[in-house]
């Protein structure tokens, strides 16, 4: 028995490790699935969706006001209001970007989206420059165009030493006045907007990115993949009726 015991211990540990890995990879959905690969089973507002884990247990957080006017999409009276605190250089934010676009397409005028700047300056060297570029474009009413441009090309610029010429190229592509953009990017208005969004984030307990609130309640990070976020939104729609 003593000769077999070590092999039994090893096999038990191997079994536990493999079973845990198998279980967890099955229960955690892949965040990197492109939007087209999401399961088609649940349409917006469909009844019978699975309950979103613990979303209703989250406290409603109000926080101090952020930059005004905020960068928003969708009707102001939409039943579901989603607020994202994001950092353009953060890889999970880059992964969340197409997911949020997909949700906007699926839920249409039932979803109101707000984006707040939360650049993680010591961690991400270009995060502040990216936030400033988006805000400077926003002063010419092209925030979302620049926002999409920066996220869509995240892997093209984040390794570069100097990102300013790249963002100026994006400014040209989205058709804004580049000379004004160059002045605005270092201006007080842009810095103030980023500061105000940051203050709002801190007052709401934001510690990292992406942090998403739906109707004032923080969405758990593990609920941000498309199939889980869809369920959270569906539940909010059901509660709003």
């Amino acid at each position: 028995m003593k000769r077999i015991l070590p092999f039994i211990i090893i096999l038990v540990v191997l079994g536990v490790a493999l079973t845990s890995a198998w279980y967890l990879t099955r229960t955690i959905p892949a965040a990197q699935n492109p939007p087209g690969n999401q399961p088609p089973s649940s349409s917006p507002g469909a009844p019978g969706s699975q309950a979103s884990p613990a979303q209703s247990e989250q406290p409603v957080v109000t926080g101090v006001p952020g930059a005004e006017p905020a960068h928003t999409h969708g009707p102001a009276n939409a039943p579901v209001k989603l607020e994202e605190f994001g950092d353009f250089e953060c890889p999970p934010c880059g992964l969340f970007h197409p997911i949020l676009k997909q949700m906007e397409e699926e839920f249409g005028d039932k979803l109101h989206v707000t984006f707040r700047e939360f650049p993680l300056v010591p961690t991400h060297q270009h995060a502040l420059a990216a936030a400033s570029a988006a805000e400077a474009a926003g002063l010419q009413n092209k925030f979302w165009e620049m926002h999409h441009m920066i996220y869509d090309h995240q892997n093209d610029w984040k390794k570069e030493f100097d990102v300013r010429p790249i963002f100026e190229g994006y400014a040209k592509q989205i058709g804004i006045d580049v000379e004004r953009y160059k002045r605005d990017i270092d201006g007080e208005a842009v810095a103030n907007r980023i500061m105000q969004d940051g203050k709002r984030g801190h007052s709401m307990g934001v510690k990292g990115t992406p942090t998403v609130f739906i109707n004032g309640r923080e969405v758990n990070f593990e609920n941000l993949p498309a199939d889980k976020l869809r369920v959270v939104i569906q539940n909010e729609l059901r509660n709003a009726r």
Partner: protein
Amino acid sequence: MKKIYVVVAVLSLLGLTDALYLTIEHVTGQTVRCTILSGCSEVLSSQYAVVAGIPLAAVGAAAYFTVFSLAILALFGYRIAGKILTPLVFAMFFVSVWLFYLQAFVIRQFCQYCLISAAITTCLLVIVLSLRWFRPAAQ
């Protein structure tokens, strides 16, 4: 002498848990959230996180499991297992040093789970070296 293999087994189990967590994060694409202090998402999404299509964390999990198995076998008197343990832990330590260099000077971000793994490997190296030093005195 035998108690030290128990310590090696426990440490390697901790390393296995850490490496399995990172493997699952990698496989599911559920990279951890970006924070002011952590660069895990950057490290896990870098080109160095994969070797020949296999997540490096999975290779680490396999290495920790091998260390655990060898420690258990050595504990039950299989001498050959103790002999294989030393070069394996040395190799893991040098890989950890290389990965630490990549985090510090190439990716310029640190992932706390990778640092935990490096710390466990360093402890394993110290224990394995102490085993070699204490063996003549014990005999």
